[in-house]
């Protein structure tokens, strides 16, 4: 009975989404206020209906209603209760429902804040979001309804959630990531609404900026969480694999980063308008492309949902309609929104333009590497995979170059910068940065790339602080009051830039100073890795809620003193007959100890991975800083004042 209500409520919400997509637009063309004003109530009703179906599906999971096919496939009565809830988004259908729920949540948030916009633009923004909702709701209903029933033969128990997903990571990673992915549809809706109404001025950028910053912050956090999850859960200690699906989330992030920066220029200087609109469309398209890559099964990936060609075709059609439609609109209307203000080649605009070019190039190289196997296959040239070395060797130099300029941009003035002052500050910082990086690398092993990257890191840190110091020490007031006066926006940028530096330092030190060894060990054996001595103490059998495990105990010694006790596990899940590796970690600010069990070999011997990774936590610490920076920028007083009006 309940699942049918859930289904029915989804169908109803599709109707409301259809009306939301049509009625306000008709109102806009006819100049009818009444029709325009339906946008908000329609949005709220649609969102409420989606929420109802989401709650019903969660109840089906929590009450073990295995008459629902999707529940039977992805849950089990023995599953701990929090995994029963998160199992909702463990498969294609449920995760799509989560996607739609988050999309409608964003719509409602826009509807709540809409009063700050001119009367006729707000409803058009909601209508565009309505079109996106129609697309995803019909995708959900027509190809992948989560409420399909298994009647009358209800299975006694469910097929269980994939053991890999029975983890804290699954609870947090998908919702946060989707918040980011889907959030970019708001920026998209603003862009398309601006094209429809022809109302593209600096205030447009001011509305779109906080929304973009918040989605960007969520996407940053989502990617960071994903990387951290993969590191401890997949059992082989990597933190980024250039897997197609990781790339699918990374491309919108890169494009979204470019969008954030070009929005800043558009807001402050009124230039790059049409480019910013195009970038908003691209960012959203890349989110859709990501959905297509993950859900169509065209690419080999660790995230692959079970493949179904009709789903792939549906998303491809959705992609073509939304992207094609908006690009067509862009082609027709963009000429009218061309910027009339000029900008100087020595000003900050030029640096931000360079930022945008480099980020776009980075996005394209990732896109090419991700799609290359598809292109190759379509041309009949054979089955290939593009390895991580491709991405590393293309991405690293361009990203480093970007970071060199990243430090310079904030230091320069809008429109025109005096070259001599600029040159003095930069050359001193460059000198100090190169020296200190050399010193650090000298203490470890010398490695050219590491030295270069660290020099860039120091360069950004020095220039950021000298910029901040220059700003607070100017004028007659004291340093602290001036520091307080600087906008949150500025501190957000500073924090995000420093976050990227922290991530860079983490990446560099992990790559040059990690010790990985795979060994054959029996209880009682000792092995030395990177100055740490690991003793394999014992092995025992333990029983979990829905698995049995072999649990090892390792003690790590440094200079004869025990520093950590680690318990790696090998779990066997009986429902799925599947084995899972649970790595044991001793996390630290400057190093991680990582032990994971391989297979059991003859006798009491086990294959064991032992890693000592330096500074790996910094990679995610930097991600958190970037997220905080994005949120701080979105909370700038400028935007809040508008909200109060």
């Amino acid at each position, binding site marked *: 009975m309940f699942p049918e209500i859930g289904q029915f409520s989804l169908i109803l919400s599709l109707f409301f989404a259809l009306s939301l997509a049509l009625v306000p637009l008709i109102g806009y063309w006819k100049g009818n206020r009444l029709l325009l004003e339906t946008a908000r109530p329609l949005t709220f009703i649609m969102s409420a209906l989606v929420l109802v179906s989401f709650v019903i599906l969660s109840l089906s999971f929590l009450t073990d209603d295995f008459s629902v096919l999707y529940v039977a496939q992805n849950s089990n009565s023995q599953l701990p209760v929090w995994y029963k809830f998160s199992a909702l988004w463990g498969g294609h259908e449920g995760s799509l429902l989560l996607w739609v729920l988050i999309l409608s949540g964003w719509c409602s948030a826009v509807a709540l804040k809409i009063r700050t916009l001119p009367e006729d633009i707000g409803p058009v923004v909601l209508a565009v979001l309505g079109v996106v909702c129609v697309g995803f709701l019909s995708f959900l209903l027509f190809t992948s309804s989560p409420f399909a029933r298994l009647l009358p033969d209800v299975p006694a128990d469910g097929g269980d959630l*994939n053991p890999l997903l029975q983890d804290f990571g699954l609870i947090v990673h998908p919702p946060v990531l989707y918040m980011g992915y889907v959030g970019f549809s708001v920026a998209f809706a603003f862009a398309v609404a601006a094209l429809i109404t022809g109302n593209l001025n600096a205030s447009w950028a001011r509305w779109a900026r906080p929304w973009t910053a918040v989605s960007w912050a969520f996407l940053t956090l989502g990617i960071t969480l994903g990387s951290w999850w993969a590191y401890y859960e997949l059992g082989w200690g990597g933190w980024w694999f250039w897997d197609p699906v990781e790339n699918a989330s990374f491309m919108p992030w890169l494009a979204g980063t470019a969008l954030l920066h070009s929005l800043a220029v558009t807001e402050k200087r009124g230039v790059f308008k049409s480019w910013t609109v195009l970038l908003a469309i691209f960012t959203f398209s890349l989110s859709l492309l990501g959905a297509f890559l993950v859900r169509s099964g065209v690419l*080999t990936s660790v995230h692959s949902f079970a493949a179904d060609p009709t789903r792939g075709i549906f998303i491809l059609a959705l992609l073509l309609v939304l992207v094609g439609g908006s690009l067509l609109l862009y082609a027709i209307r963009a000429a009218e929104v061309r910027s009339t203000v000029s900008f100087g080649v020595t000003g900050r605009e030029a640096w931000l333009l360079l930022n945008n070019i480099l980020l776009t190039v980075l996005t394209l190289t990732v896109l090419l590497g991700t799609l290359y196997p598809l292109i190759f296959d379509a041309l009949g040239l054979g089955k290939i995979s593009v390895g991580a070395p491709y991405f590393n060797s293309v991405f690293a130099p361009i990203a480093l170059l970007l970071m060199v300029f990243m430090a310079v941009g904030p230091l320069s003035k809008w429109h025109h910068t005096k070259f001599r002052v600029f040159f003095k500050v930069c050359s001193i910082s460059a000198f100090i940065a190169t020296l200190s990086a050399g010193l650090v690398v000298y203490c470890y092993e010398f490695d050219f790339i590491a030295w270069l990257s660290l020099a860039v890191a120091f360069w950004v840190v020095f220039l950021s602080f000298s910029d901040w110091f220059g700003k607070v020490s100017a004028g007659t007031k004291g340093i602290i009051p001036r520091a307080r006066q600087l906008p949150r926006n500025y501190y957000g940028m500073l924090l995000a830039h420093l976050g990227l530096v922290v991530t860079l330092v983490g990446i560099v030190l992990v790559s040059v100073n990690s010790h990985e060894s795979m060994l054959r060990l029996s209880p009682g054996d000792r092995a030395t890795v990177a100055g740490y001595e690991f003793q394999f103490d014992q092995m025992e059998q333990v029983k979990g809620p829905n698995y049995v495990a072999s649990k090892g105990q390792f003690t790590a010694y440094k200079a004869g003193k025990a520093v950590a006790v680690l318990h790696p596990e090998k779990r066997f899940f009986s429902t799925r007959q599947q084995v899972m590796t649970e790595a044991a970690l001793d996390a630290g600010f400057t190093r991680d100890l990582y032990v994971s069990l391989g297979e059991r070999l*003859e006798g009491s011997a086990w294959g064991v991975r032992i890693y000592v990774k330096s500074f790996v936590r910094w990679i995610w610490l930097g991600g958190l800083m970037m997220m905080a920076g994005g949120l701080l920028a979105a909370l700038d007083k400028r935007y809040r004042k508008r909200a109060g009006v």
Partner: protein
Amino acid sequence: MHPVRKKRLLVITAIVLILSAAVGLVMYALQQNINLFFSPSQIAMGEAPRNAIIRAGGMVVKGSVKRNSDTLAVAFDVTDFQHKVTIEYRGILPDLFREGQGIVAQGKLNNDGVFEATEVLAKHDEKYMPPEITEALKNAQRSTGESAESVQSTY
């Protein structure tokens, strides 16, 4: 030159320079890092290059997994039910590596026709079959038609 035009020229030159550098980098990196997939039949027929990094894969033949008793070295055969190729690997195999399961390995084919793997991948869901292997099996079936049943029975 008109200052606006001069500015535009500067911007365009910068874009062209960066783009061409990026394209060069991409071409070079792609040339180095593309790994072609070969099925056991293709390897048996000598289509696969020796001593170049390639990918190979198929179903792990039952009873073919041999482990060294002192080290982590392991050898096993993979098949597309037409031909077999022996894969040697030193290290820890993934959790879903099992006899009868489809796997993909990356490495080099040595002069003895043995595939020396540096990486062995099995997917994270047991229902999931790497697309390369699905296709390799289909091709192998098509070429004779006889072994269709044996393929079916292995899953």
